[in-house]
């Protein structure tokens, strides 16, 4: 005989303002099997939980239904409550009458009716619940960090510091990411290289960190605590272990027409090159598109010059497999392509550059050795105009709807640095709004305006065109209500940033969810901002949303704390809601194994009695419960209905549907 308790939560006014909770409790009390039905203001509070515990003990309840918020929110809470009162935690069902009811309805009568139906549905399911116990699985004590920018570096360092092994997989030839390209950093104006490169060196020297550059994730299998990852180590045609980074090969290489990626293509580099002086690893790489030896077999100069025989023209991509307990995604960002913004003349005029290109032009290690000259004729620009929000906050469809967050501050930085170093230069900035929340940020911006006399013009730019050797920037000045044309020598576009395009593929491989702008979604926007909804996947840096360096570093460390918390566990409780196969129905067709993302299904030949004293051997599916994550793909694919999910059986789901449809 089932004895069911129903507990209807007010959630303060969140539910009670739209749903007549007392009526819900009164109606559900009349459902067959229900012996107690109560309401409380905050069921998740200690008092609310005590009410549930007491009710379980006093009434000998066999199961409970909590009508409250989403199970994503408090299912775990109420399962613990039930367990502490001696009830199997899987004899708890949540009817979501907040997100799926009170929050989306306005009419109290309708919302109340719906809450009752949702409660009935949960009761119907609970009646078919069975007590479940979860198994345990071991945790591989190693983390994978995908992306070697400042986010990945910081996460890796913190995880390694806590004593766990961590691998950084970086797709380019060096770690450092976008930050390595920056000149100075706001709001303190320290040199980016001065604060980043020591961290890069720390990574290289840390015994717990293994850096794999020029490598990509090939596939990810498994689940939290037990990921199996294939990593493609792309051929760099240089033996990383032998190369000393002496750079002789770079000097001797006759093919010097490759675009220097590190300098945003503003100058050229040889076919064999080290990305930049402080690259980690400090090892050369050959660009097969440029290398004469690889292209037509003629040359081989670098191999002749190399003292340590590190050059290997026959090197092939190599795929290695490693196991990890946790995965940090730190794939970062790139500026958007400006093909939709022809009005600014980026593709037409050499002296229209992006902010990241300007960083290189101003950087002492850049193509002009830090002497700010314009790309077309290498002369010092006397009038520089900045255009903000190029593709940011753009709802026209050409750019991105979001604010890229970093541009206001770096433009103020650029303007200030230019006025500091070249005081006779005129600097104008077109802006929509200047956004400077953050410690010492607004002070920084005001300094640019008040102390350095940067001319901020509120308004958008209509077009940039050339006239008499000047770039004419035509825009509106909204404050003075007039059209202005500023003859400039250099125009700098604050291009919006977007997630690195590789993140889509990676998100698919690790089954992490992604939003419409390709930013990874966090498990909870406020309370779990560094975790993906997929267990064991963590988010570090701009892959989760636009952010500057201080914020990225904080998030990276937060992410590391979460990873360490996971890796410090010896065992993880497995999901008890796993699939199982009814062998009397299974035909062994293999369809379930095809769709299983975790490789949890294998087949065995088993003997079955078929009547008349005879037996027959049949191939049937068998589920490895430690590996099954309960996703249910097999149950919906099985044509025979042999596969079923504990806790979410086909019968339970149908019972819920029936309860909802019944009037």
């Amino acid at each position, binding site marked *: 005989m089932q004895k069911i308790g129903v507990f209807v939560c007010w959630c303060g006014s969140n539910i009670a303002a739209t749903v007549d909770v007392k009526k819900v409790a009164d109606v559900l009390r009349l459902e067959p099997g229900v012996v107690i039905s109560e309401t409380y203001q905050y069921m998740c509070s200690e008092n609310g939980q005590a009410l549930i515990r007491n009710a379980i003990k006093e009434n000998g309840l066999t199961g409970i239904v909590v009508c409250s918020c989403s199970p994503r929110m408090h299912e775990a809470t109420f399962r613990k409550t039930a367990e502490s009162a001696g009830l199997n935690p899987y004899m708890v069902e949540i009817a979501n009458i907040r997100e799926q009811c009170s929050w989306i309805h306005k009419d109290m009568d309708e919302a109340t009716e719906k809450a009752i139906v949702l409660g009935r549905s949960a009761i119907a399911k609970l009646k078919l619940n069975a007590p479940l116990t979860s198994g345990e699985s071991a945790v591989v004590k190693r983390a994978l960090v995908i992306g070697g920018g400042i986010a990945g570096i910081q996460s890796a360092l913190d995880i390694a510091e806590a004593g766990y092994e961590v691998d950084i997989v970086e797709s380019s030839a060096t770690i450092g990411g976008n930050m390595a390209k920056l000149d100075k950093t706001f709001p303190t104006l320290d040199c980016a290289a001065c604060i980043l490169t020591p961290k890069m060196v720390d990574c290289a020297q840390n015994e717990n960190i293994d850096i794999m550059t020029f490598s990509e994730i090939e596939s990810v299998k498994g689940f939290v605590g037990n990921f199996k990852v294939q990593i493609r180590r792309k051929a760099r045609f240089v033996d990383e272990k032998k190369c000393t980074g002496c750079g002789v090969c770079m000097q001797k290489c006759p093919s010097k027409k490759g675009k220097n990626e590190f300098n945003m293509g503003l100058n050229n580099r040889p076919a064999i090159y080290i990305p930049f002086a402080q690259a980690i690893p400090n090892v050369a790489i050959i660009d097969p598109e440029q290398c004469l030896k690889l292209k037509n077999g003629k040359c081989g100069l670098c191999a002749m010059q190399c003292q340590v025989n590190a050059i290997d023209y026959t090197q092939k991509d190599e795929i290695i497999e490693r196991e990890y307990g946790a995965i940090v995604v730190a794939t970062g960002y790139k500026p958007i392509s400006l093909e939709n913004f022809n009005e600014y003349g980026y593709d037409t005029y050499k002296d229209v550059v992006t902010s990241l290109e300007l960083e290189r032009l101003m950087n002492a290690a850049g193509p002009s050795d830090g002497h700010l000259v314009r790309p077309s004729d290498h002369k010092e620009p006397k009038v520089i105009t900045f255009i903000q929000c190029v593709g940011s906050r753009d709802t026209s469809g050409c750019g991105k709807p979001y604010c890229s967050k970093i541009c206001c501050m770096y433009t103020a930085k650029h303007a200030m640095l230019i006025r500091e170093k070249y005081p006779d230069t005129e600097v104008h900035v077109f802006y929509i709004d200047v956004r400077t929340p953050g410690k010492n940020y607004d002070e920084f911006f005001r300094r640019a305006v008040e102390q350095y006399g940067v001319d901020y013009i509120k308004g958008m730019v209509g077009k940039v065109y050339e006239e008499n050797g000047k770039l004419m920037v035509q825009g509106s000045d909204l404050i003075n209500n007039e059209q202005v044309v500023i003859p400039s020598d250099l125009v700098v576009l604050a291009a919006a940033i977007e997630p690195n395009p590789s993140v889509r*593929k990676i998100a*698919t*491989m690790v089954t992490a969810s992604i939003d419409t702008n390709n930013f990874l979604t966090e498990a909870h926007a406020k309370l779990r901002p560094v975790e993906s909804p997929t267990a064991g996947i963590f988010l570090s840096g701009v892959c989760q949303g636009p952010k500057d360096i201080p914020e990225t570093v904080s998030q990276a460390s937060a992410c590391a704390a979460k990873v360490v918390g996971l890796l410090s566990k010896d065992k993880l409780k497995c999901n008890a809601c796993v699939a199982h196969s009814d062998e*009397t*129905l*299974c*035909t*062994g*067709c*293999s*369809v379930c194994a*095809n*769709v299983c*993302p975790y490789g949890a299904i294998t*087949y065995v030949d088993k003997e079955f009695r078929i009547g008349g004293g005879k037996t*027959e051997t*049949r*191939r049937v599916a068998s589920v490895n419960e430690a590996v099954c994550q309960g996703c249910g793909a097999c149950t919906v*694919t099985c*044509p*025979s*209905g042999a596969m079923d999910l504990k806790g979410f059986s*086909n*019968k339970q789901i*149908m019972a819920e549907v029936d309860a909802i449809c019944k009037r």
Partner: protein
Amino acid sequence: MQRIETAMIEKAKALLSSGEVTRVLGWKKGELGYDVEPCVFKSEESLKDFCYNVFCGANLSKYLVEESKKEGKILVFLKPCDSYSFNQLIKEHRINKENVYTVGVECQGKVDPYKLKENGIEMVDSAVETVDTVTVKGKEFKKEEIILGKCLTCTKKPLSYDDIISFNEKREPVLDRFETVKKLEAMTADERYAFWKDQLSNCIRCNACRNVCPACTCTKCVFDNDNSGIASKANSDSFEEKLFHIIRAFHVAGRCTDCGECSRVCPQHIPLHLLNRKFISDIDRLYGEYQAGEDTDSKGPLTNYTTGDVDPSDVFGGNN
């Protein structure tokens, strides 16, 4: 065709007498010419009733699910379309390939006895076949007038066999396989509902479609399983057959080879294959052309996820 039948019997006799096979799965003559039925022949003498002619439309592959479990090898003759079903069953581990000796046989379309009856021809004793014509009771028909619906659109090729008997002459399909599907797609939802309600209300739930379907080989069908909760669901609806056929179409989606047996055996002449073909056409549009049963090892588009898979709403629009 007589020539092929003779060659097949010779092949069967040779394999039986050499002991390589113990049984032969083929077609057996009936009282009348079109009363051909599938049969397992266990001796050389029994082969006197063996036949292979324009009335051998039945797909033999499904019988092998049970036959291949038995001791000894069985010889099976497979028309091109039967071969796809055979492969699909191999893929699903439903046939023990080691116990089967396959011989591919040529086919230029099989006659639909109902179409003969519509033409006023009954009590057929025998027929004479050429590539394009069939002559029965002294009347010559063009093939497209009297062959089975499934043969009118047949694009199936011979696949791989242990042996092949004559594939010299091939017929090209007369109709576009998806023509009727396209017509149905062009209808409004109400028109389509009316079409299917009209068609499916003829169903007498004889289960012939399910029993003949080579994709329906479950140890226990969900409709026969009281525990599945599906059977009673379907029964409770006044328009039960709609659910039965639609659920069945979903169950075989991605595995149906379009062999057309469901429509061939339906005593009520319901064009059941159109449900399956709609799935096939959608799969083709979403994941590229796919023919179930063309191979024995691919996963098939509905049970294989790749990162390049499209979102159906990108192809069919947002409301699908």
